[in-house]
Structures are given as structure tokens and as C-alpha cells.
């Protein structure tokens, strides 16, 4: 028999309580995995959208963290395109809209010029790509078209305005598959932002690949652009990855994910603390026996701590499985599944397991200390 054997016995003999405690931890881990996974997935999807449309740099207003509120004069686009090292510039207007008479809200919409790289790189699944003369036309991602039950040629109502469905595209990921693409000037009109864009997606010349110094020169040139009076335009030109990681929307999603996870973890941790404390108080006499038989304080503390960690480990395993099932379940549930793509990477899984170990360690520490410090004589008298 080893110490871990005694630990296993102690956990196993209170099956119902151990199962409930593990469930609490599993819920905390599953919540963390799901929420952090979703926020990571959102970040990854955003990055894929840029990279998939050949955007190396994204130019927006410096200091504007909420990307949808960034507003730049679209006439700056040709000036950026004329800079050395720039291959193409794709002006882009983004927003969130409601569709289907309000049945779907928060659907991303992007306005691109018909001849831009982004529009040209769309993979058409049905119908055709939007052309320069397709005003009032719209393209839908495959998942969105399926959710709305729309076919090419039918009408789509966006923000109470009717558009004609010209084509359905196969997006780069679930996020794009649940989005809408219009011509840039149609979206500017719809959002009452004529002549304005949120950002320019800049494709660099191929010979700049893997040349950070030269990319830096291009970025500096964009950021140095000024109006005819010599005032800086206040632009920032960030690599697509960094741009995807630093948006306020993503930051908010990340903060909410961690905030909610922290609450779940705290509840799980307090549940474990309560269980372990009850367990110690119920076993005062038994702990006294261990001490009387020569167990050192540290050995008793290790036993209690291992019990807490064992509960956490079982909870973590159940939480990882539960979290995986949860996100898979959500992915296949209605429109939410189309919008969210969880990223259950090893990092996210390691985060979940670390959370469980943290819960186990913190939840077991105080009971372990309390058990170790019991007076042997008092403990043996305890009934």
C-alpha cells in the first residue's frame, strides 16, 4: 500500500460528496475551456479572414481600439497603394447587422470594392461574385444562406432594406460563412458613412516576405502620411496578426471569457475547500491516529493535499471531456454554431488543466494545514 492508495480510499469512501465536488470542478474547467476556447477561436477566425484575403497589414485610425468605429477617408487608399513595397490596397467597411426581419442579430457584414483582392479571392459556391454594376446585390456565406433558407436570385432584407442575393460563397471559416458581403458603396450608404472606411487591408509586394525591416519601413511610411496642410492623418499600420489580437472587441470577448471563468473557478474552488474542510473535520480522530502512529505533519498535509488534487484531476478530466462536448454541442446548435468556432488547442486544454490544479492546490492547502496542525492528544479524544 502506498500513500496514494490511502488517498484513493479516502476519496472513494465518500462517493456522493466526491462526485459532487468533481462535478463542480468539471463545470469550472468546462466553462473555462469553452469560453477561452471561443475567444481564442474568434481571434483565430479573425486572423484567418485577414490572412486568407492576403492582408499583410491593416491600416486603421491610431488609438481607436473599437475597430468598427474607426473611420478613414477612402481617398487615402490610392496614396497607400502608391507607396513603395505595397502591392494592393483593399478598402473595407465592416459592421454588424440584423437579418431576417430581426430574427438574426449581430451578423457581420463587409463592404468591399468589386475589383479588390478580397472580393476576387472569394470562393463562389453558388451564383456569382459581385461585380461593379451589382448595386443592391449581396453575397451570403454558405451557413448564413442555409440558416435563412435563401437561394440565389431571392431577396434578402438587411436593416429593413432589400438586397438581391447574387451569390453564395464558401467562407474561410465559420465566422466568414455566417457573414454578408456587399459592395463597398452599398454598405457605406446603408450605414450612412459615405466616403468612409474602417480600414485598409494592405497586401505587400512578395519580395517583402520575411523582411521585417523593410515591412517596418512601409509601416512607417503609412503612419507618416499627412494631409495637404501637413497634419498627420493619425493612421496605424499593424501586421494582420497583431491587429487581430489587439481589437477592443476581441479584448472584451477575452476579458469576459476569463472573467466568467474566474467566477466559475472560484465557485469550484470554494466547493472543493468546503469538501476538504468537512472531510478533515469529520476525520479528526483518524488524523490523530495517523499522527500517533508516527506520521509527520508534512505527511498528513501531503495526504490531504493529494486528496484535493485527486478530486481536481478527476474533475479536470471530466471538465475537459465536458468542455469539448459543450463546444461541439454549441457549434451544431442553430445560428450560434455558425458564429462561433472554438479553438480547443493544447494551450487551451493546458489552461483548463492548470485551472483544475490551481483549484486543487488552493482548495486543499488550508484543510491540509489545519489537519497537520491538529493536536494528537486532542484528535485522539475526538469522537
Amino acid at each position, binding site marked *: *500500500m*502506498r*500513500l496514494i*492508495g*490511502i488517498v484513493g*480510499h*479516502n476519496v*472513494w*469512501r465518500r462517493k456522493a460528496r466526491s462526485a459532487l465536488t468533481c462535478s463542480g470542478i468539471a463545470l469550472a474547467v468546462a466553462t473555462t475551456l469553452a469560453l477561452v476556447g471561443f475567444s481564442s477561436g474568434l481571434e483565430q477566425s479573425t486572423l484567418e479572414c485577414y490572412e486568407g484575403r492576403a492582408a499583410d497589414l491593416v491600416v486603421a485610425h491610431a488609438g481607436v481600439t473599437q475597430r468598427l468605429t474607426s473611420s478613414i477617408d477612402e481617398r487615402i487608399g490610392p496614396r497607400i497603394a502608391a507607396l513603395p513595397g505595397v502591392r494592393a490596397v483593399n478598402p473595407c467597411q465592416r459592421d454588424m447587422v440584423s437579418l431576417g426581419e430581426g430574427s438574426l442579430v449581430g451578423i457581420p457584414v463587409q463592404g468591399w470594392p468589386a475589383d479588390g483582392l478580397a472580393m476576387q479571392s472569394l470562393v463562389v459556391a453558388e451564383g456569382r461574385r459581385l461585380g461593379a454594376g451589382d448595386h443592391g446585390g449581396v453575397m451570403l456565406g454558405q451557413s448564413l444562406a442555409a440558416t435563412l433558407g435563401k437561394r440565389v436570385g431571392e431577396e434578402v432584407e438587411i436593416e429593413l432594406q432589400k438586397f438581391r442575393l447574387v451569390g453564395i460563397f464558401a467562407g474561410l471559416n465559420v465566422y466568414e460563412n455566417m457573414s454578408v458581403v456587399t459592395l463597398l458603396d452599398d454598405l457605406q450608404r446603408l450605414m450612412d458613412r459615405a466616403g468612409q472606411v474602417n480600414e485598409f487591408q494592405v497586401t505587400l509586394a512578395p519580395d517583402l516576405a520575411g523582411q521585417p525591416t523593410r515591412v517596418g519601413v512601409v509601416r512607417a511610411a503609412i503612419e507618416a502620411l499627412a494631409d495637404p496642410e501637413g497634419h498627420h492623418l493619425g493612421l496605424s499600420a499593424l501586421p494582420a496578426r497583431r491587429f487581430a489580437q489587439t481589437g477592443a472587441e476581441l479584448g472584451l470577448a477575452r476579458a469576459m471569457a476569463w472573467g466568467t471563468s474566474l467566477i466559475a473557478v472560484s465557485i469550484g474552488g470554494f466547493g472543493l475547500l468546503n469538501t476538504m474542510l468537512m472531510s478533515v473535520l469529520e476525520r479528526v*480522530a*483518524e488524523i490523530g*491516529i*495517523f*499522527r*500517533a*502512529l*508516527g*506520521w*509527520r*505533519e508534512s*505527511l498528513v498535509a501531503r495526504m490531504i493535499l493529494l486528496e484535493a488534487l485527486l478530486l481536481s484531476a478527476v474533475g479536470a478530466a471530466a471538465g475537459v471531456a465536458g468542455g469539448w462536448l459543450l463546444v461541439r454541442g454549441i457549434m451544431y446548435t442553430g445560428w450560434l454554431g455558425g458564429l462561433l468556432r472554438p479553438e480547443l488547442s493544447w494551450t487551451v486544454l493546458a489552461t483548463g488543466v492548470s485551472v483544475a490544479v490551481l483549484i486543487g492546490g488552493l482548495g486543499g492547502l488550508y484543510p491540509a494545514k489545519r489537519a497537520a496542525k491538529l493536536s*494528537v*492528544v486532542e484528535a*485522539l479524544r475526538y469522537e
Partner: protein
Amino acid sequence: MSNSHRPAAGAPLLRVDRVSRIYPEGAVTALLDVSLEFQKGEYVAIMGPSGSGKSTLLNLLGALDKPTAGEIYFDGQPLSGNRNLDVIRAEKIGFVFQSFHLLPSLTTLQNIQVPMLAAGRKPCSRVERARELLELVALGHRAGHLPSQLSVGQRQRVAIARALANDPPLLLADEPTGNLDSRAGAEALALFDRLHRQHGKTLIVITHSAEVAARAERVIWIRDGRIVTREAAAA
């Protein structure tokens, strides 16, 4: 059996030097200025009425508690400054408690191994030793049983086997026959006799029973926290 608290000659295993134990919370003097010696291989019974201080003395002798005044020497070493009382309990002292204190969720074989974990024995030697001890107490066939599946007498024998786990020189027993019927009690006492005579263990037994005390080589009488004569204890 002698009827005295005077020790036999020779280097004592345990020496109690003017020990007092006062519980400050209740201002109770459980032991007052007690001096005793226990020789190696001695079989001693401690008798006295309830509340006389017997259990307090046993706790002090077993390094479970510390005296308020005075000193206890184990094998010539003072216990008061010793920070490794756990090690002494694990390796030098075997306890047999009145209510056995077996761990209910562990089998007899596992219960016997508990003190060996404290002594840091290797797992395979723990199991081997536990089996040997179960054979010694004639319970080899009950290795996989839980305490709840044993008779009271069998539980007592498992407790004795556990006390012997690390082959300690000293065995302390608190009312070892208090919860046993006469037959099981006689078996336990026969086992104590064997451990004393054949294995050379020093036995200190707290008891109310004259029958138990009669098997000891020496009886110490205690009353109101002091060592007294038999007549004074009975008064």
C-alpha cells in the same frame, strides 16, 4: 509481580524526571512531580482510579504530549527538545489503543502498513512485514478483511500487529482488554506475554483489571496525578 514504583537496576529505556502536566484551560493538574524509570524488557502495569492521570502519563510516555514541567528521557535522550517526536513514535513506540483505532476503510493488511509508511519502508517490504505480523497474531487468513468484518478480539490482534509494524522496543497499551470478552482478553494477554518473553519488548499497560496487572512484573499505582502505594490508591 512487585508492588512498587521503584525501578530495577540498569540503564532505563524510559526515565520520567519530576514531570508535571497541567492543563491551563481547565487549570487541572493531571500529573504532579512524577518520577519513574522503565527498564528495557520490563512488563509494567499502571493502575489507578478513573481520572487519576494514567492516560496523561501514557500520552507523555508515548511522546504524544509534552509535560508542563520536568523531563522524559527515551533511551537517555530528553524528549522536550526533540523535534522528531514523530520519528520516535514511528520507530520506537507501538501503541495499542483501548478502542483499537483501526482505519475503517483499510483492510487488515493495509492497516498494519500505516506506521511503516511513516518510517519510510519500501512498499514490498511493507507488505511482507504486514503478512508476517498477521501470521504472528494468527490472522493470516483475514488479510483482506475490513475491520468491520472482524470480531472485536480479532480487531484487537490487528491493533497489536500494527503496533509491532516497525519492530519498536516499547509497546504502550491503554486498557487492552477493556473492550474484550474474557476469551479474547485472555488471548490478547497471552500475546503480550509472548511479545515480552520471546521478543524482549518493553510493555507498559494501563489497566483497571487486577488480572491484567497480575501478569506484569511490576505495578505502578497512581492517584490524583501522583505515584502512590497500592494501599493509598485503594483508599
